[in-house]
């Protein structure tokens, strides 16, 4: 099946073409069926190839599809690289992608853009698969841009709403900033190594000076910052929640935003060589994690809470990458994909039940009304909060343990983030599902559990969130860490753990104890004392106001970037455009007109005059030729 790996991106492409061209003419069921079927086919191929790879001793498989760019010394074949890393990402993308397709059939059922939605979704999966499968930076870049485009299209899916369109544009522009860094990184790689193929570049990486490697690693990381919503380019992700909820789950939680992590893991050799770059990654990661987690504490929009939580978890993953724990980060990508997709889909189910309401202040007491959603979301919340034996516990603990051996400060910040995560997630859970219903009567009457097409993915993802931890059991328990062994071939420079078992046990106990404590704290606050988010912003304390307004980062960017840019543009418009350019264009017109009105005087219809002018002209020319000679 590895030889046929090109089939994996091919199926979604076919689905995209069918839905794109004839989607409107066929029934909704058929349209959704084709889209989901395409992803299911990809998933089956991915699973078969995965099984084959596990049994095979050759871990790096390069599959040439066709010769792509041939120009002088620049030779770029269109090749796929199928190794443990891409095989894992293929499973995540197609597996979770398939579940979310199924979910979307139920969620988008009444939407007029049904087939358009599935067209974009299939296109997204295609590009995402290209991104993780490519054997050189350029194919990854094509996928990278493609997913950015699909993200833009899907955030602005309900294009009649101006705010949604603005959110889409914001996401696209923010990503462009990162993409520029990525592109410069690729160019620098080509200039340095004369190739952009992964296999060639990584083999030669040790032969180049460390400063060049640092530059490459930092440029690539700028790309990752944009795509994976890290400081200072994270503000697009919370706004991206304007898109339909399945999109938030698939693109803005489980897959696309982890592209940055994928790319860093792929290029791990650069980050292992360059101390500066890996330090930067770790610091940016932990700051983002902490920053976003604090914002999450006081948000009232159910999707915004999850969005900030995503930013925060991505920060944790980058922290893991920065301290050299590449396989732990990939493990966290995997478990995060399970529980965050679950939480988003659950939130979608809640929003569906509430008839479009997203404000948690209007919800409450939903646990009895939508039981399946409640139970699955509860499992997801426990998983993200890091309670054993749920999946999030194992992956987060691995990252924090590696951080501890690297730097105590970073570990402390990571720990605080983890505690805050438990708090805001349980705050959301308690406020949404317990207490009294606070919405309108019409909403209360409308409350209902979602159709099976929506609850089925929830149940599957909940199961994965619970048992996902078995992929990476802690080695000091004497259990096999499959994730670590699986990814070993792609980590070029090893970074073995040096912690004693006692320390690891202590750290783990500390993590569990703090998670338990903060959940108990949230329980007393929101269940016993029934604290509710205040209705008006003016009721907040000053420090709460700052957090509630997301530290005014958007306003800050607005002030230092958008406003000056606007002012410069206005000046250019008024001076250069209106005066200079318009002046030249209008001046040419006026000159032609006035000369024309002068010359027109000779056109009087008198034949004699014409003939005389003609003869005079000829005589003049003849004389001129004689005189000039």
């Amino acid at each position, binding site marked *: 099946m590895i030889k046929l790996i090109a089939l994996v991106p091919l199926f979604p492409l076919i689905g995209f073409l069918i839905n794109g061209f004839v989607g409107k003419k066929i029934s909704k069921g058929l349209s959704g069926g084709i889209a989901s079927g395409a992803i299911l086919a990809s998933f089956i191929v991915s699973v078969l190839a995965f099984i084959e790879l596990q049994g095979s001793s050759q871990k790096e498989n390069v599959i040439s599809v066709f010769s792509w760019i041939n120009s002088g010394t620049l030779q770029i074949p269109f090749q796929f690289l199928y190794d443990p890393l891409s095989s894992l990402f293929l499973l995540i993308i197609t597996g979770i992608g398939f579940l979310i397709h199924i979910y979307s059939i139920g969620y988008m059922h009444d939407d007029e853009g049904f087939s358009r939605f599935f067209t974009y979704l299939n296109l997204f999966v295609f590009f995402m698969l290209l991104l993780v499968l490519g054997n050189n930076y350029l194919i990854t870049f094509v996928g990278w841009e493609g997913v950015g485009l699909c993200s833009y299209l899907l955030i602005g899916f309900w294009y009649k709403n101006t705010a949604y369109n603005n959110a889409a544009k914001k996401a696209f522009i923010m990503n462009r900033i990162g993409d520029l860094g990525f592109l410069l990184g690729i160019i620098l790689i080509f200039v340095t190594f004369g190739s952009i193929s992964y296999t060639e570049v990584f083999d030669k990486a040790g032969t180049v000076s460390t400063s060049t490697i640092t530059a490459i690693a930092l440029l690539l990381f700028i790309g990752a910052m944009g795509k994976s919503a890290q400081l200072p380019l994270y503000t697009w992700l919370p706004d991206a929640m304007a898109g339909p909820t399945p999109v938030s789950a698939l693109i803005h939680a489980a897959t696309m935003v982890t592209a940055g992590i994928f790319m860093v893991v792929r290029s791990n050799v650069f980050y292992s060589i360059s101390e500066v770059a890996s330090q930067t990654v770790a610091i940016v990661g932990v700051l983002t994690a902490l920053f976003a987690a604090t914002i999450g504490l006081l948000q009232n929009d159910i999707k915004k809470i999850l969005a900030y939580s995503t930013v925060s978890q991505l920060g944790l993953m980058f922290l893991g990458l920065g301290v050299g724990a590449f396989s732990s980060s990939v493990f966290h990508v995997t478990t995060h994909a399970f529980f965050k997709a679950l939480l988003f889909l659950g939130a979608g189910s809640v929003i569906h039940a509430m008839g479009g309401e997203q404000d948690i202040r209007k919800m409450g007491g939903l646990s009895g009304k939508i039981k399946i959603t409640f139970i699955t979301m509860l499992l997801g919340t426990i998983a993200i909060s890091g309670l054993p034996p749920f999946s999030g516990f194992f992956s987060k603990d691995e990252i924090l343990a590696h951080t501890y051996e690297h730097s105590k400060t970073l570990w402390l910040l990571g720990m605080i983030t983890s505690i805050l995560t438990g708090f805001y997630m349980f705050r959301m859970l308690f406020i949404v599902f317990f207490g009294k219903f606070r919405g309108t009567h019409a909403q209360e009457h409308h409350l209902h559990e979602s159709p099976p097409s929506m609850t089925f993915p929830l149940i599957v993802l909940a199961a994965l969130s619970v048992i996902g931890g078995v992929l990476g059991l802690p080695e000091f328990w004497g259990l096999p860490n499959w994730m670590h062994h699986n990814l070993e071939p792609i980590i070029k420079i090893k970074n073995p753990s040096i912690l004693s078992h006692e320390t690891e046990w202590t750290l783990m106990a500390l993590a569990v104890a703090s998670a338990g404590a903060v959940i108990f704290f949230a329980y007393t606050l929101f269940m016993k004392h029934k604290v509710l988010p205040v209705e008006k912003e003016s009721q907040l304390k000053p420090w709460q106001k700052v957090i509630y307004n997301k530290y005014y980062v958007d306003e800050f960017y607005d002030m230092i970037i958008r406003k000056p840019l606007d002012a410069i543009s206005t000046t250019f418009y008024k001076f250069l455009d209106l005066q200079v350019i318009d002046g030249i264009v209008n001046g040419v017109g006026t000159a032609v007109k006035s000369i024309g009105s002068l010359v027109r005087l000779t*056109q*009087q*219809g*008198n*034949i*004699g005059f014409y*003939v*005389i002018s003609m*003869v005079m002209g000829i005589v003049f020319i003849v004389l001129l030729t004689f005189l000039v000679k």
Partner: protein
Amino acid sequence: MINGISINYYLLLSTVLFIIGAVGVMARRNSIIIFMCIELMLNAVNLLLVAFSTLHNDAAGQVFVFFIMAVAAAEVAVGLAILSMIYRNVKSIDTDLLSNLKN
């Protein structure tokens, strides 16, 4: 020398004829006269062509003259037809009256 007459005389005659024609076209307002003056100019050129053709013993000039005469005949036919139409419409062949397209 052509038949004992210097080429200069041919040139002179042709020039005089051409200038008479040109002045006629410029000065007169009667369409018929203008028309005749144009013919005069054409034939002045024809004269020059045949003269040099004989001088250089090259038949091409004379062939060319036949062409001009044939085309001139066709032109006369068309021109006279136009003139008669003008006369039918404006009851005059004065060119100064023909300025309807002016404004």
